[in-house]
């Protein structure tokens, strides 16, 4: 794997855009921004394979903002769709029916609902077969397209349409967010990374680095969702940055199973700073602050960083969770 990079500062962000201005996503959508940046690194020759979700609606007949190929498959089987495209291109090139210049990078793009849930069987198969593809999951931590119901990626304490906080169940979602990064890593994927649109250089470098690896590559992009999370669309990048600064969203990668944090904050901001900015967590603050729930969230973030630091040999100053 190469370590040289063409991305040192944000000024190195490629100028070419493969996503034209104007699409049907909400203003401030982190998901479509991730697609745009991802595409800049991949270059023009891409076949996107999509599962049902918000992104599906971005390509609405007769208009597509993409300058590359696109297939919408179904909710559950985008990785299998990538398998078909990859195999077809390979066999057609091998048989001399297609010039190599027509070859493409095959990229699955789905939300967390597909990546963590209904599409997981298909994903597991693709990893198992060591399919050479990218998987970009824009993780808005719920089923956005159907109106923000919980997914396996919804964090503890978040409200959603199917985990509404009530007097009897005041916390909202009581499950912990599933750790998709670790699932892929455990299954032997050669490259797994988290991304945040707020950390562009880190983002660009990771897509570049994954590109030197053959096999299944997962990118989980923390995709701020003003509509679902409840905040002003202009604050998307700030919110993503806060998630990184509070340690809620660690930036890391795993190369051949070896995990390395690509950004180690010297000290973390309190999670409260991040939570209180969003409607989906507002029940933790109003009418009365649910200090025990916020403390649970803070201590799980603290525990994460203590464990990661012990493994990788760094230490992070964490806020008090007592």
């Amino acid at each position, binding site marked *: 794997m190469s370590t040289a990079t063409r991305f040192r500062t944000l000024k190195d962000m490629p100028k070419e855009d493969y996503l034209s201005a104007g699409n049907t996503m909400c203003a401030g959508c982190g998901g479509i921004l991730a697609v745009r940046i991802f595409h800049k690194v991949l270059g023009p020759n891409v076949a996107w394979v999509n599962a049902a979700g918000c992104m599906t609606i971005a390509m*609405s007949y007769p208009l597509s903002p993409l300058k590359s*190929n696109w297939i919408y498959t179904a909710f*559950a*089987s985008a990785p*299998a*769709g990538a398998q078909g495209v990859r195999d077809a291109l390979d*066999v057609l090139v091998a048989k001399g029916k297609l010039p190599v210049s027509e070859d*493409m990078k095959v990229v699955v793009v789905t939300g967390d609902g597909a990546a963590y849930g209904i599409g997981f069987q298909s994903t597991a*198969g693709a990893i198992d077969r060591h399919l050479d593809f990218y998987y970009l999951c824009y993780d808005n931590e719920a089923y956005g397209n159907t109106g923000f119901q919980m997914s396996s990626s919804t964090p503890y304490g978040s409200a959603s349409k199917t985990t509404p906080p009530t007097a009897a169940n005041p916390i909202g979602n009581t499950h912990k967010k599933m750790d998709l990064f670790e699932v892929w890593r455990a299954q032997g994927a050669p490259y797994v990374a988290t991304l945040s649109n707020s950390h562009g250089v880190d983002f660009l470098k990771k897509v570049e680095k994954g590109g030197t690896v053959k096999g299944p590559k997962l990118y989980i992009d923390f995709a701020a969702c003003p509509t679902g999370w409840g905040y002003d669309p202009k604050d998307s990048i700030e919110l993503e940055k806060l998630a990184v600064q509070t340690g809620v969203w660690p930036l890391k990668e795993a190369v051949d199973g070896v995990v390395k944090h690509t950004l180690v904050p010297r000290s973390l901001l309190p999670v409260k700073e991040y939570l209180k900015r969003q409607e989906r967590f507002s029940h933790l603050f109003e009418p009365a602050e649910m200090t025990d729930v916020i403390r649970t969230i803070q201590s799980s973030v603290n525990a994460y960083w203590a464990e990661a630091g012990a493994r990788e040999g760094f230490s992070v100053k964490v806020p008090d969770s007592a």
Partner: protein
Amino acid sequence: MPTEGDLADDGGGHAVKGKLLTGNAAAASAARLARVDYIPAYPITPQTEIIETIADWVREGTMDAKFVQLESEHSMMTAAGTASLAGARVFTATSSQGLLYAMEMLYNVSGWRAPMVLVNVSRALAAPIVLEPDHNDVLAARDSGFIQLHSETCQEVADMVLLAYRVAEDSRVMLPAIVNLDGFYLSFTRERVVLPDQKGVDSFLPPYQPPHPLRASQPVAKGTAVMEGFVYSYFKYNMHAAAVRAKKVFSEAARDYKELFGRDYGPVEGYRLDDAEYVIVMSNSFTTLGRQAVNRMRERGVPAGLLKLRMVRPFPTEEVVALLKGRKAAAVFDQNLSPGSGGILFPEVAASMYHVRDRPQTILPVVGGLGGKQLTSDEMTSIFEEMIAVNSGSKPLAPMFLMRSEEMAKVKRAVALAEGGS
């Protein structure tokens, strides 16, 4: 594991053309003759021999294609469809539960206008779980937009696969196709099959030229969302028109096929219909039993005949009308059941005849052979006897559900046992 056996002579010292092949081996052989590029697969009884045979050939290098085993039929159909969109000629096979597991993707693949060929080896659907055939599986795909060709013999299996590619890939059609064969009765039964020669197949079926494949140099978007019902309606009507055109395209292709290989196929096939007054309408392998019943009735002096549906989608309305009009009575033998309605093909045949002035006075719905239930020749002739009785007014018209009294007695014993009786 080769299932082929050469037929050197017919036992009487006469040279016989062809090989002994199971229906499954015939399907695999046709896929190889079609020079398919890609086979995404997933095993299910009774289809397994098809994909195992192809896996063997690809691994030993006698078939130039890529074979991949997926983790489900849903994924298998997804990969089949997207590979076809990328320009590959794609073959796959499934059965029963597998076809239903893939059902969501059947509609996508036809909507993508991806002309791949799927062999379905019919097997009845759970619950209760059973291995032998009926046609609820393939008819569940009836409305999906796939062309459907159903086979009576192993020879037909091979021929239908080749014809299916010609029709599916025709620019006037561009729809996927299902070739159906009955599990066990054809899938594991060796019959004499004359495989077409490769040179002939190459001229019958030139390489697939996709009109708008995924390409780096000329990007396309497939399966995109449409926001309004009228746009959706437009694409669905388009698909319908293409499916309707498939009948004519099939007939053209069948003409070429006959010229090259000598075998003649229409969307339907008549048996002893010339002067027939009582006609049974059937499809798939049990049609052979229908032919025997016709012969027995003829021996008794009854002008009996048979109409076989080879093409089920598009539905060959004109052919059905042409062959049924002027008859006294017809019976539609459905080896499937839509609970609460009855046989699935009966209403299609009846609707075809509704506006025909000299239609049969009686059209008798018959359901039988579910879960592969064997049919005696008496059961088959009873269909003609019922047709005659109803038509002469000596019996009211009522749907027949075939079951023999000794079978009923056995079931009753089993039920008693299951209930803890003795």
